[in-house]
C-alpha cells in the first residue's frame, strides 16, 4: 500500500449540490436489512414449525421497502423498487416447486432404496418386497438402443447440414423438418411406433425395440440441433488448413472437424439421452410393462423405470402401501439418473472443450 499513489481527494461539493444530486433516498442499510428479515421469515415459514403462512408475512415485510420508498423517494423510485421485489418474487416462486419435488422425492424415496430394491424384479411379488431390476435393465437397454439409432442419424444429418448442405434446398427442408420433429408430442411418437409395428406384428404389439424407435423420434432432432451448433463452432480456418495439406474432405471431417467438436457433441448427446431416459408416454404405449426381467428388445413387453413408476402409483393393488413406496423409490432412482446425466454433460463441456480456442 503506497499512500503516495492515492489521488488527492476532490474538493467537497457544497451541501446543497450534494443534496440535489443524491435526492432524498432510503438509507442504504434499509432495503438490505428488510430483505434479510424477509428471507429469514420465509425460511422459517418453509422449514420451521410455524406454518407456510409465514412466507406470505415475509413477502409483506419485503413490501415495506417500496411503500416506504413511496413516501421518501417518490413514485418513480418506488415503482422501481416494487418491480425489483416482483421480479425477485418470481424467481423465488420458481424455486418452490423444484425444492418441493427434490425434498419429497428424496425423503420418500430414499428409505426404499436397498440392495434388494436394485437386484430383484417384481416376478412373483405380492405386497411387500420386489425391486426395480427389470425396469432398470429395460430402461438402460431401450435408451441404449435409442441412442444407437439416433446418434448416427443425428450426427450425420448435422454433418450434411453444415459440411455439404450449405445453401442447398434439401438442407433448408431438413432444418424445417427437424424443427417440426422437435415439436412432436411424446405420446404421438409412441403412437407412431405402435402404428409402424402393428403393420408387421399385428394389433396389440408390445416390444422393447418399438420403445427405442419411439424414443429415437424424440431424440434425433435434439441430437441434430446440438451437433449442428457444435459443428458450426469449428472455425473454417481449420478445415482450410486441412484441405491445404491435401487431405480429402471426408478425412478432414472425420479427423479435424469432429475431434474439434467432440466435447460439444458428447455434451449434446448426453443431454439428449437425459431427456429421453425419463420419457414415459411412448413406452407406456409400445413397450408396456412386465414383472419379469426381459433382456430381449425383440421379444414382447419390457419394463422401464418411468412406466414402472407410473403403474406402481396409479394401480397399487391392495394393500397399496408397498407399491406406492416402490413408486417413490423408482422415481428417486430415475431422478438421480437424469441429474447425473445432466451433471456429466456439464463436466464434459467444462473439461474437454478444445484447448486454447475460446
Amino acid at each position, binding site marked *: 500500500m503506497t499512500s503516495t499513489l492515492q489521488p488527492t481527494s476532490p474538493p467537497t461539493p457544497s451541501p446543497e449540490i450534494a443534496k440535489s444530486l443524491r435526492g432524498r433516498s432510503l438509507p442504504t442499510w434499509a432495503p438490505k436489512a428488510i430483505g434479510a428479515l424477509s428471507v429469514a421469515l420465509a425460511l422459517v415459514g418453509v422449514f420451521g414449525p410455524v406454518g407456510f403462512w409465514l412466507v406470505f408475512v415475509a413477502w409483506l415485510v419485503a413490501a415495506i421497502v417500496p411503500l416506504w420508498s413511496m413516501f421518501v423517494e417518490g413514485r418513480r423510485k418506488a415503482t422501481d423498487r416494487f418491480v425489483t421485489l416482483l421480479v425477485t418474487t*418470481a424467481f423465488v416462486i420458481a424455486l418452490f416447486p423444484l425444492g418441493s419435488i427434490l425434498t419429497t422425492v428424496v425423503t420418500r424415496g430414499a428409505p426404499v432404496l436397498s440392495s434388494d430394491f436394485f437386484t430383484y424384479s417384481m416376478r412373483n411379488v405380492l405386497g411387500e418386497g420386489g425391486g426395480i431390476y427389470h425396469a432398470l435393465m429395460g430402461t438402460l437397454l431401450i435408451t441404449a438402443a435409442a441412442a444407437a439409432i439416433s446418434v448416427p442419424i443425428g450426427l450425420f444429418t448435422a454433418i450434411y447440414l453444415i459440411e455439404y448442405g450449405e445453401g442447398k434446398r434439401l438442407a433448408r427442408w431438413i432444418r424445417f423438418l427437424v424443427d417440426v420433429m422437435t415439436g412432436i408430442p411424446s405420446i404421438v411418437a409412441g403412437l407412431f411406433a405402435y402404428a*409402424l409395428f402393428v403393420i408387421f406384428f399385428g394389433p396389440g404389439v408390445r416390444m422393447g425395440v418399438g420403445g427405442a424407435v419411439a424414443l429415437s423420434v424424440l431424440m434425433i432432432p435434439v441430437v441434430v440441433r446440438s451437433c449442428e451448433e457444435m459443428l458450426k463452432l469449428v472455425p473454417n480456418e481449420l478445415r482450410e488448413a486441412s484441405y491445404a495439406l491435401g487431405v480429402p*474432405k471426408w478425412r478432414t*471431417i472425420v479427423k479435424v472437424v469432429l475431434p474439434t467438436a467432440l466435447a460439444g457433441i458428447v455434451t449434446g448427446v448426453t443431454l439428449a439421452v437425459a431427456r429421453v431416459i425419463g420419457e414415459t408416454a411412448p413406452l407406456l404405449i409400445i413397450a408396456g410393462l412386465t414383472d419379469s426381467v426381459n433382456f430381449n428388445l425383440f421379444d414382447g413387453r419390457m419394463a422401464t423405470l418411468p412406466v414402472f413408476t407410473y403403474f406402481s*402409483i396409479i394401480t397399487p393393488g391392495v394393500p397399496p402401501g408397498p407399491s406406492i413406496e416402490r413408486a417413490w423409490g423408482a422415481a428417486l432412482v430415475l431422478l438421480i439418473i437424469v441429474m447425473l446425466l445432466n451433471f456429466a454433460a456439464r463436466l464434459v463441456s467444462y473439461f474437454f472443450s478444445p484447448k486454447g480456442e475460446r
Partner: protein
Amino acid sequence: MTSIQSTARKRSTPTRPGDRIFRGTSIAAALTILATLAGVALFLTIEGIPGVLASPDEVKHGTTFIDYVVPLVFGTLLAAVLALALAIPVAIGVALYISHYAPRRLASTLGYIIDLLAAVPSVVYGVWGISFLATALVPVYSWLERTLGFIPLFAGPPSATGRTILTASIVLAVMVLPVITALCREIFLQTPRLHEEAALALGATRWEMARLAIFPYARSGIISASMLGLGRALGETMAVAMVLSASGVITFNLISSTNPSTIAANIALTFNEATGLTVNALIASGLVLFLITFLVNFAARAIVERRKDFSGAN
C-alpha cells in the same frame, strides 16, 4: 462457356470413393429424417382413419369421433392455456431477474438451477403432483370456493382430492416455466447494450429501462417463447394423466371433481385397455394433437423468423 460449366460441375462431385461414401451417408441420414416424419404422418393417418370413420357402436366410447374428440380438444386447450397464463408472468420475471437483476457472478448458476426443472422427468412431476401438490391444494380450493365462488371458474364444489384441471395446469406451468424462461433470458441478454445505456443515460430507473429498452426489443421473442411453451404444454402427457381425475366433460369449473380430459392423457389412460377400432380412434386423436402442436410450433417459428428479418434490417 459451356465447357467451363461442365468441368465446374464435374469438380463439385467428389471423385474419391471415401468422399463419395461419406457424402452419401450424410445425405442418407438427412433423408431418414424426411422419411421418419413422412412415416409419422402416414402411419398415423392409415391407422387413424378407420377410427374416425367408425360408427358409435363399434367403439368403446360409443360416440362419433367428432363427439369424442371435441371435449378432449377443449380440455387440452384449457389446461395448456391456463398453464401458460400461470407460467408466462413468472417466467418473464425469472428471466428478467437472471438477466438484469441478479448479481452477475450468480446469473449462470441461477439459470442452471431453473434449467434443472426442465430435466425432471414428467412421471416424477406426476408422482409429485398426485401425492403432494394435489393434497396441498385441497384447502386452497375450498377457500377459493368460499371467497370467489361467485366466479364460474371457482364455482365448485371443490374436489376432495385436489386432482382438478387447475392442479394439472399448475404442474404443466411448472414444466413449461424453464422452457419459456430459457428463451426469454436469451432474448433479454441480447438487448443491445447501447439501447439500455441510452435509457439509463436519460435518467431512467432500472424498471423504466426495462420498459424502454428491453421489452420493445424482446416482445416478439417473448411471444414465440410462449408459443413454444404452449406446444410443450399441449403435448405433455403423463403429468396430466396422473394428476387429473378426468370425466371428459366440457366445463370451465376449474376446481371441481368433474374435469375435462386432455388428448394426450386420454390416450395414455385408455390405450392399454383399448381394442379394435377404439385403438384407431385413439390414434386418430393423436393425429389431431400432432396437428394442433404443429400449428402452434409453426406459428412460433414464423414469429422468430420475422423477428430475425426485422433485426437484420437494423
